């Protein structure tokens, strides 16, 4: 089943929707020179057709609402429906960001309370709720660290990032004007502290880490690393994508991190939306507080206000105060879970990952020793002799009704299959998934060519990504195809790299 583009269904003679008429008197007319000459070729469709169109598109998606989504590093957990109800309340959704503060006390209080709650979870002094996503948060944290060093008259130009780190880490560092220095992982999958020692210098502004690290392993020597980093005057930054392992178990702030980001769209159940919006608060220790983006939310005697008067602030990282609607969702979740619930959530996430890892022993390769934390990285290299790659395992899972784990990330594990079950999947689901992986591995051994032909029952089979990138067609064109699209279709290259997280 495929669905035509909305543009392809458009009929030029269809009348527009009924809309209000102006109903006022004025002679004003926009001068010709400012007038649009050619109307945009938006589709003309009736509401009935539009709803049918998007309903059909929706049915072509896998989502956490219907499928187990063990996408490592992405913490695809159940998104409570009450959160959605909360965000839709007119008292939140209907607020203009420039309303006078007296008329937005509830919104300000919510942000203030959320900040405090998140401070307790991660062990920091203050938090900005402004950044829109994880990558934005990384960059915001680095901007603060940069401003901190500059305020001390130091121009530190390097940021250290582990070789296993998420791609946004080095990209954020560069966007912030830093040079990226890579630190190696050791054989046990953890940061090689000797290499770190070697890379540290007074040119280094920060070390970016996540803990548990990208392999799902706790960095046992985190306290020692923090000491090494601080000894050189650098700051330690925490990539919060893996916080789901730690709530009520231990706190990045206690480990020595100076700046800590959180992905509310991972750990705190705000839905991922097919690629956002998210929310990426950044928490900091006292040292960095003066550099927080402005405004902050303050409370004086029960009255809440925005504080714009922060002379050392890095300024604004986006318009207004953050993805407020996502903050409402996260706050609702925190209230419902409470300290006890969040703690149990992290413990259950760790349990589920270890259980699933155990179920996959002997099925896929498990290059690192356990126990793992909330996720683990397996490898499909054991299927190499059959010509089967991680990608084929992923596609086999899609065919069988599961979303695929993150594959080819981290780069340091060949044929990586990164699995994060989260705390909201039942044991029955974990068992059924493990059985399915087993069945796929058996198929890989028995008739690898069948596996390589999968998926067969989804709206499309494997797409030729190489051809798509060589002749990019990025839009529909009113009169025929995009100019750049010309070449004939080539068969799928099954080794297409597909490394995301």
């Amino acid at each position, binding site marked *: 089943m495929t669905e035509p583009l909305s543009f392809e269904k458009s009929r030029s003679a269809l009348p527009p929707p009924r809309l209000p008429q102006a109903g006022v008197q004025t002679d004003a007319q926009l001068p010709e020179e400012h007038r649009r000459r050619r109307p945009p070729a938006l589709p*003309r469709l009736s509401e009935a057709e539009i709803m049918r169109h998007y309903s059909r598109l*929706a049915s072509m998606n896998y989502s956490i609402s219907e499928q187990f989504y063990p996408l490592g590093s992405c913490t695809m957990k159940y998104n409570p429906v009450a959160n959605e109800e909360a965000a839709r309340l007119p008292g939140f959704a209907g607020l203009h960001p420039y309303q006078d503060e007296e008329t937005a006390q509830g919104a300000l209080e919510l942000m203030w309370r959320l900040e405090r709650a998140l401070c307790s979870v991660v062990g920091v002094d203050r938090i900005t709720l402004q950044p829109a996503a994880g*990558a934005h948060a990384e*960059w915001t944290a680095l901007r603060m660290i940069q401003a901190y060093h500059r305020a001390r008259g130091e121009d530190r130009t390097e940021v250290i990032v582990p070789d296993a780190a998420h791609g*946004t880490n080095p990209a954020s560092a560069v966007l912030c004007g830093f040079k990226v220095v890579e630190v190696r992982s050791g054989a046990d999958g953890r940061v090689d502290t000797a290499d770190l020692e070697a890379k540290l210098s007074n040119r280094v502004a920060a070390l970016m880490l996540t803990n548990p690290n990208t392999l799902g392993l706790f960095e046992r020597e985190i306290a020692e690393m923090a000491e090494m980093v601080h000894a050189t005057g650098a700051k330690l930054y925490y990539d919060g994508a893996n916080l789901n392992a730690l709530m009520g178990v231990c706190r990045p702030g206690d480990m020595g991190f100076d700046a800590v980001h959180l992905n509310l769209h991972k750990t705190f159940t705000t839905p991922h939306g*097919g690629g956002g919006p998210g929310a990426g608060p950044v928490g900091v220790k006292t040292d960095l507080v003066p550099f927080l983006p402005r405004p902050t939310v303050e409370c004086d005697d029960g009255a809440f206000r925005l504080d714009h008067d922060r002379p050392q602030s890095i300024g604004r990282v986006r318009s207004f105060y953050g993805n407020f609607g996502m903050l409402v969702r996260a706050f609702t979740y925190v*209230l419902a879970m409470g300290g006890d619930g969040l703690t149990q959530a992290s413990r259950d996430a760790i349990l589920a990952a270890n259980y699933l890892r155990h179920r996959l022993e002997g099925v896929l390769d498990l290059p690192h020793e356990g126990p793992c934390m909330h996720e683990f990285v397996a490898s499909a290299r054991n299927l190499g002799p059959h010509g089967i790659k991680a990608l084929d395992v992923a596609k086999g899972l899609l065919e069988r009704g599961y979303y*695929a784990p993150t594959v080819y990330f981290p780069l340091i594990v060949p044929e990586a299959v990164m699995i994060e079950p989260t705390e909201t999947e039942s044991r029955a689901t974990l068992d059924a998934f493990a059985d399915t992986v087993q069945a796929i591995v058996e198929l890989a051994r028995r008739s690898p060519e069948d596996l390589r032909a999968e998926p067969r029952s*989804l709206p499309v089979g494997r*797409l030729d990504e190489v051809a798509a990138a060589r002749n990019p067609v990025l839009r529909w064109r009113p009169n025929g195809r995009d100019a750049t699209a010309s070449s004939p279709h080539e068969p799928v290259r099954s080794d297409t790299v597909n490394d995301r997280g």
Partner: protein
Amino acid sequence: MPYLVHSTEDREAMLEALGVATMDDLLVDIPPHLRVDGIDLEPGLSEFETMARVRALAGRNRVFEDRLWFRGGGVYQRFVPAAVSAVTSKPEFYTAYTPYQPEASQGTLQAIFEFQTLIAELTAMDVANASLYDGATALAEAAMMAVVETGRRHVVVAGCLHPEYADVLRCYGDGRGFDLRVGLEHVGSDTAAIVYQQPSFLGLLEDAAGLTELAHRHGALGIACVDPISLGMLAPPGEQGADIAVGEGQQLGLAASYGGPHVGFIACRKELMRRLPGRLVGEGHDDLGRRGFVLTLTAREQHIRRARATSNICTNHSLCALAASVYLTYMGPDGLRQVAEVSYQRAHALAERLAAIPGFELPFPDRQFLNEFPVRMFHVEHHLARLRAAGILGGLPVGPMFPDRPDLEDVAIFCCTEVNDPAALDLLVEVLTASAASVNTRSGAR
């Protein structure tokens, strides 16, 4: 416990399968001195009590009736067809991840492909990306594209740019190493781009074609920051020589929501395509020749290129882009034009009536505007308080935002859209007339 799925028995069975006695056996890698036991937060609440608390907070905000919003400044009240949230509240859309696995994500991918097309059409540019966080960061991304493309380090702002957008540009520039200069007198051979907002923050129309021409004359790029609804009637950046067009998509079906989540869009000329930040969806085919959609040109992106990526964008604002797509598809070209025209006519009718109130004046009477315009009103805060008391969200006082522009003291910008029916306009004028009279009486006529 809410949202958790295991019974105590389940947990025990799993531990047993793992051959360990307690959860602590799985936490052995954590140094004991770092372990905490729980979180200093009150225990969880039932859903009923949770929602009661959340509703109480919502109740502590004042919600103005939609037809009585005359405040814009980047966020506007508009008619949102019910179809928009009917689509975005589909769990298949809102609980999916970024579409990494195309075969299981055709819904999201096709929706983004349609969004890219809609934005490209609207702006009359060649290509658009899958979305960015908001208008301000989209502008910063555009500036960084220009800095890389030209190898230059100065970005010049023409006209009155939204002060928050300027702040964001400055913050990005401080990190990335470019700086912001305000005023055309700064344009020169070291200018990476001229940035203009159309209409300006004050609502006034700029000479867009002249600005892009000036930029090109100096080897710089022209970057337009546009209002998407205005493009239903206004000449689009693509018709005026812009190299990159960005904007804020809140008006395309998104709630004000105290400032977010909204959505940024970015579009550019074909030649700049490979410098675009963030996600791009392209058309592809499977081995049976079936058309499908897929994330493409990923060689620009952080997960492939890491430190050499064009941006760090990973999660963007996909669901908001979906809302915008539904909105634009609902409107079609004629509907969008009507929305823009109705807003235009109401704003002009209102401006004429406000200008007629003794003591009020239009500070830039010779400038063209669309549906937002500045009004100078002595004692602006007094008038706004009177409006508030009448349940009206009056214009935005801009004086405090521009401390170095004395000409904006006592100025508020008012906007009109299709939600402000004629009776709402009448009420506004009535309250302001009375308020002006009381001020004039108290302070003597101006």
